[in-house]
């Protein structure tokens, strides 16, 4: 969307703190949401996903929350480590309709973890 041309927002935290990264998605018809981590010069890597029929899902040190009422997604990282420093993107997938298979990304957030 239009946000891909904007500078990415940043979040700086201390090692051991919890991090919360937020994302607003655009289409209420999206069925599936994914968080990706991208390190410099590499392709994005899958972190965690959530279906539209859920509002919370937990992984190892990460939790994703989905609020469909306000079209908001968040990623919580517990006990953030320097290795978590990267750019984090949310993505939404249309699983049906005329845009079936369309996977679009949110703006992204640069996370910097200070030792």
């Amino acid at each position, binding site marked *: 969307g239009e946000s*891909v041309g*904007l500078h*990415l927002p940043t979040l700086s935290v201390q090692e051991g703190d919890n991090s919360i990264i937020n994302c607003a998605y655009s289409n209420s018809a999206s069925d*599936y949401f994914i968080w990706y981590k991208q390190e410099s010069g590499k392709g*994005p890597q*899958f972190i965690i996903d959530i279906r539209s029929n859920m509002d919370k899902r937990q992984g190892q040190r990460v939790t994703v929350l989905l609020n469909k009422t306000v079209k908001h997604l968040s990623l919580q990282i517990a006990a953030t480590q320097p290795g978590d420093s990267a750019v984090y993107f949310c993505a939404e997938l249309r699983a049906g309709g005329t845009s079936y298979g369309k*996977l679009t990304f949110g*703006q992204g957030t640069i996370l910097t973890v200070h030792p």
Partner: protein
Amino acid sequence: SQTIHQWPATLVQPVGSPLSLECTVEGTSNPNLYWYRQAAGRGLQLLFYSVGIGQISSEVPQNLSASRPQDRQFILSSKKLLLSDSGFYLCAWSAENTEAFFGQGTRLTVV
């Protein structure tokens, strides 16, 4: 296991020259395929996606085209590159309604 191959890793091309970036997937059938472009320090812009052979959806009208000549091959092309085509190009694949897996990307510099 499934793997995705994208090449070349870096490319420097003069303005007005053609472009062909190739992406292939192994270990799966009928994947959804995607091309994204990422400017430095920016987000991922969806360029094209394909849910099957011969089915290409174009998201952003521009100087690029995509083709899917085989089930697991996705090609991004341009007849004449512009300076504004410079960027980091990423190919990805997904199974139906699951997360996408990305290639390592091609850094294209148009000079």
